[in-house]
């Protein structure tokens, strides 16, 4: 297990990848959003939303892909077993996601306390997500980040093992499943109940579905990685 911890330490050797770049992305996204809020005349009394907070989450998708295409081959040269690479990498991402989720919850509290950063802007404490107790928002942010990372990581394991053919089959299959579900809902005329189901979801149930998806993706990527070659 010590070597799994070293896999995480190895990825922190370059401080920029996991600490510097995310910090810049969050700070940059916030600065741009704040500037736009400040530019809009005060006469508008409504709250202004910015989705820029998700920028760092998409960076996680990229990191998930890169960890497989570049860090995995390097870890093989470091004589790291696939198992240790997997646990070290997924563990590190979970840890970083925890820290950023915590940061978002704190920033959300500051946002509410300062009346939207003094300009009535909203970037971290959205209605619905932050309506409940603090840990609900924390869980939503955390699951969103882990899910995006797992999607990138899982897609990259498929690519690593079956290359372009794997990718094509994968996305055609995903599209086919989505189409099948849509067709099913249409033929059984159950769109109203589907709509109702979506409205009934709470931040916690959405996080639950995300967690379930993550577990499936995590299991799938582990089994795929076991036989991947650098």
């Amino acid at each position: 297990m010590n070597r799994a911890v070293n896999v995480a330490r190895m990825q922190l050797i370059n401080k920029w990848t996991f600490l510097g770049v995310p910090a810049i992305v969050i700070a940059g996204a916030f600065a741009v959003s704040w500037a736009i809020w400040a530019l809009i005349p005060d006469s508008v009394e409504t709250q202004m939303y910015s989705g820029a907070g998700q920028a760092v989450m998409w960076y996680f998708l990229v990191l998930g892909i890169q960890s497989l295409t570049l860090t995995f081959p390097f870890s093989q040269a470091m004589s790291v077993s696939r198992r240790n690479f997997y646990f070290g990498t997924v563990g590190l991402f979970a840890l970083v996601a925890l820290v950023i989720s915590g940061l978002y919850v704190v920033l959300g509290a500051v946002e509410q306390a300062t009346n939207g950063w003094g300009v009535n802007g909203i970037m971290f404490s959205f209605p619905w997500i932050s309506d409940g107790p603090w840990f609900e928002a924390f869980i939503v942010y955390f699951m969103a980040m882990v899910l995006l990372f797992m999607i990138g990581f899982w897609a990259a394991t498929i690519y690593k093992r079956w290359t372009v053919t794997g990718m094509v089959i994968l996305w055609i299959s995903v599209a086919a499943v989505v189409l099948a579900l849509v067709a099913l809902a249409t033929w059984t005329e159950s769109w109203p109940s589907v709509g109702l189901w979506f409205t009934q979801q709470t931040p916690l149930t959405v996080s639950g579905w995300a967690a379930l998806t993550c577990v499936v993706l995590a299991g799938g990527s582990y089994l795929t990685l076991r036989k991947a070659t650098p």
Partner: protein
Amino acid sequence: MSDSNNAVIEVRNLTKRYRSEKALDDVSFSIAANKIYGLLGRNGAGKTTLMSILTAQNFKTSGHVSVFGQSPYENEKVLPRICFIRESQKYPDDFTPQHAFRSASLFFANWDQAFADRLVQDFQLPVKRRIKKLSRGQLSAVGVIIGLASRADITFFDEPYLGLDAVARQLFYDHLIEDYAEFPRTVILSSHLIDEVANLLEHVIVIDQGRILMDDDAEDIRGTAHTVVGPAAKVDQFVARREVLHTERMGSFASVTVSGVLTDAQRDEAMALGLELAPVSLQQLVVRTTMAATESDFGGTDRSAETLEVSK
């Protein structure tokens, strides 16, 4: 580790198939501890595939591989004792050589940072430049430094000299020999620059089209083939009933490479016939053996097929 008969790697009937193509075809050999091995062969002969399977970076189709008496795959007792930097090694996108060396120090227990620093100086490697911006030679140097300074019990070097200039290559050979003398370990060096590494090697394994053509101690190989030069008729007389690896003819003269150790009587016979005998370098021997194997592959069992190439 008490390995039976001192072998650190045992390979039996190893086959690797990529779709219909056989990259390795029923390969068997063993590697003894604390020797320097040369894994020689042409590009695409199967050298990298073989090393990848020995280090569990790739998977065999069938056969048996054991390293330190165990299967290397996902084996925490085996993997930390091996180091294999491939010729086309990938590094994390934003890594510099410095980052790579710090990683290596996390995973290789015998890592010697002072030694790595000395190698960086010798190879004049810019350690703060991103690896993807390095030249081919500098990239090779990164792999060479990790391979040497990790001092793993089994170290693989996969064509480590690509892009390195003559001075850097000599530095590598010198450091390898020097460090090996101080810290004996098993080294497997894949190469097609055979003459350059010939003096380093204690044992030679030649692989071609996925098959082992030669697996002998370097000492034994030297002198196992000779080139006989002289008037064609007399050369033919001398080489009759010997295994001919290669024949060159120029007018009435012939130069024939034959395998087999010569006895004193045979040397006298050659002298009496007025023939010149010359030893064959390891590179020549490998080239001739490989070409002879290829020729027989194409149905021509006539290994002494005449070639009309002009030579010294």
